[in-house]
């Protein structure tokens, strides 16, 4: 059962690769994602799925992430199918295949309960996403893809060295049958050699943090997001970055089990605040609205690690924020993609009055901006505010105040650009691009934003339970 979550998208990727029709191929991708989502929904109902030999386990933490990425893939690939129908002259065989391969590998990252297997899956996601970044060819996409591959592969290499260190810490402890299964590592954690474990945490955090887009290792992210097709940006931001966050959580989990969480939390807090500050600086007067969203991703990845660093109630809020941020950011990137198509540009100099030119996308873009910056009544407000109250509640006044200040700066910086894009009159020269809003390019965004609104108004009890379980699992190991 648990293998099917990985094997089915893999099989469908092969089918998609074999289909000769450039017109029909993209429609098979959302179909495969629909099947995957159905399987995920069934799997979420089960208490805990485990493969033979404990290589794959669907624990509460994994459930949160698996549900999110499966849903995002369905909505984004639906959008992609329409997006690709406009670009029939370019073969989408590799693009569609790689989308499904990425889904499969991300599911493997989430399910794997072995340090080495998780690393392999993470490397695979880096490789399978690369051709999609380069879909539009051209020097700018090439540069973005090159940077993405080079920086992320250095990150992946450091993560491997970190895994080696962690493995050596079990060897040094003189444990019999030292293994890298998470369950065994958790059990043996108190006996692991501290200096090795600290070094391993730093390397793994920096390595996977590069993939997650934390400052100062975030430099690939604005370029990749800026140049990738809109649905790919949405998936990068909403699905791939959270997968890297999950990898960091797995390592943090081992630190917690070793009774050494304070060390990890301190690093996470500072890197988180640095990420928010870096993002805030680059978002002010940002003239490219897709890069603006990319920096917003850096900011929110920072918020996630800050939430974990603060701990307690904020752990729950950070996990909720993974979902809120994923859905909102995907909605923002997809609507930004529509606005880009409508104006033929992503520079604020050429784009204004999106509300008139593309009313649905412009309106949803504005709503998405309000949501992501933490305005009520949307979902991110709940999670961002909970992290703030948790910071003050646990007496971390400095961190809490800085966090609040940075949120405010981001709101102002992002607001100036977004208002310029959405409001006002469209420029005379624009509006000639053949773009029309239709079911395929508006419906996924409406669905995403509706979910964000629902999460803000009333958190479903089943989701609260799941998040509570995941937070408890992370804090205590059970």
């Amino acid at each position, binding site marked *: 059962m648990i293998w099917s979550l990985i094997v089915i998208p893999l099989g469908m990727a092969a089918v998609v690769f074999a289909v000769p029709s450039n017109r029909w191929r993209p429609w098979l991708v959302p179909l495969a994602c629909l099947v995957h989502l159905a399987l995920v929904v069934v799997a979420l109902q089960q208490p805990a799925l485990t493969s033979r030999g404990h290589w794959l386990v669907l624990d509460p933490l994994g459930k949160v992430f698996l549900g999110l990425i499966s849903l995002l893939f369905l909505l984004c690939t639906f959008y992609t199918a329409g997006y690709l129908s406009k670009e029939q002259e370019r073969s989408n065989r590799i693009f569609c295949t790689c989308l499904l391969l990425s889904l499969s590998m991300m599911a493997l990252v989430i399910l794997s309960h072995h340090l080495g297997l998780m690393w392999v899956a993470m*490397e695979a996601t880096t490789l399978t996403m690369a051709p999609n970044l380069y879909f539009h060819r051209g*020097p700018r996409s090439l540069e973005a893809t090159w940077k993405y*591959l*080079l920086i992320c*592969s250095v990150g*992946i290499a450091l993560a491997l060295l970190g895994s*080696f260190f962690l493995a050596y810490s079990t*060897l040094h402890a*003189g444990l019999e049958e030292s293994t890298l299964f998470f369950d065994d590592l958790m059990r043996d954690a108190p006996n692991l050699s501290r*200096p090795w474990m600290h070094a391993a945490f730093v390397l793994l955090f920096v390595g996977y943090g590069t993939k997650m887009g934390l400052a100062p290792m975030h430099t690939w992210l604005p370029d990749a997001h800026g140049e990738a097709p809109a649905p790919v940006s949405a998936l990068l931001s909403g699905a791939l970055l959270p997968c890297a966050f999950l990898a960091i959580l797995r390592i943090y989990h081992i630190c917690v089990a070793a009774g050494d969480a304070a060390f990890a939390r301190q690093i996470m807090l500072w890197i988180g605040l640095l990420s928010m500050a870096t993002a805030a600086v680059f978002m002010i007067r940002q003239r490219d609205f897709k890069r603006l969203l990319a920096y917003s991703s850096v900011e929110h990845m920072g918020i996630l690690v800050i939430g974990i660093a603060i701990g307690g109630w904020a752990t729950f809020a950070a996990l909720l924020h993974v979902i809120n941020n994923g859905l909102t950011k995907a909605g923002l990137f997809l609507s930004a993609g529509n606005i880009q198509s409508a104006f033929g540009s992503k520079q604020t100099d050429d784009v204004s009055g999106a509300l008139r030119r593309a009313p649905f996308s412009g309106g949803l873009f504005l709503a998405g901006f309000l949501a992501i910056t933490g305005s009520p009544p949307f979902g991110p407000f709940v999670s961002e505010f909970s992290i703030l109250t948790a910071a003050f509640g646990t007496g971390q006044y400095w961190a809490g105040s800085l966090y609040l200040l940075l949120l405010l700066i981001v709101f102002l910086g992002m607001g100036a650009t977004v208002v310029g894009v959405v409001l006002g009159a469209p420029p005379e020269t624009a509006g000639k691009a053949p773009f029309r809003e239709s079911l395929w390019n508006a419906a996924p965004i409406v669905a995403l934003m509706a979910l964000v609104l629902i999460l803000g108004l009333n958190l479903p009890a089943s989701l609260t339970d799941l998040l509570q379980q995941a937070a408890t699992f992370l804090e205590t190991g059970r």
Partner: protein
Amino acid sequence: MIVQWLDPMLVLALLVNFFMLGASRLRAVIYAVAFQGVLLGVMPIFVRGEVGWWLGLLVIATIIIKGIVLPELVSYAMREVFISREIDPVVSFVPSLLLGAAGTGLALGYARTLPLAPNHSGSLIVPASLATVLTGFLILTTRRKAITQAVGYLVLENGIFLFGLLLIEAMPFLVEIGVLLDLFVCVFVMGIIIHHINQEFSSVSTEHLARLKD
């Protein structure tokens, strides 16, 4: 463990690092990386002290991949895309060497703070590994050409492989998956060859890959 043989080899690997930092010809650096790859390939024999079928396979595979295939691929790319033979450093050779020396010193100092298992004590593996990783970083960040960055990544990988020597008995699986890093090098080089980095930028210097910025 036959430490008396291993340590001189590790020192040799460190000297190769310095040679790479100081070399001005791309071809020389590629040869150096190939030599380091072969050196790394035979090291597991000296760690283990005996050769079983699994270890023999690992040794042969490492020598073929790190010593022959990847360097050959890089020099193929060099010929194919007409990359000039001079290395174009951001930080010139003498400062690179000094940085490399400082990095090696730091690695030696830091490795002292990490406790070793009884059967590994006194070995140079950890400092050699860290120093090689730092050298790889240095080459990656201070050389302009895309192809030199691929070579730098290879060196970084060699450093990680060196650390793997400590785990070769306990966790062979983890050491084996390290080979997957080579995939990246292949992708980089293929990227240079196929995706016309040459045609689009008129030279394979990453300085031209600098249009995207804030």
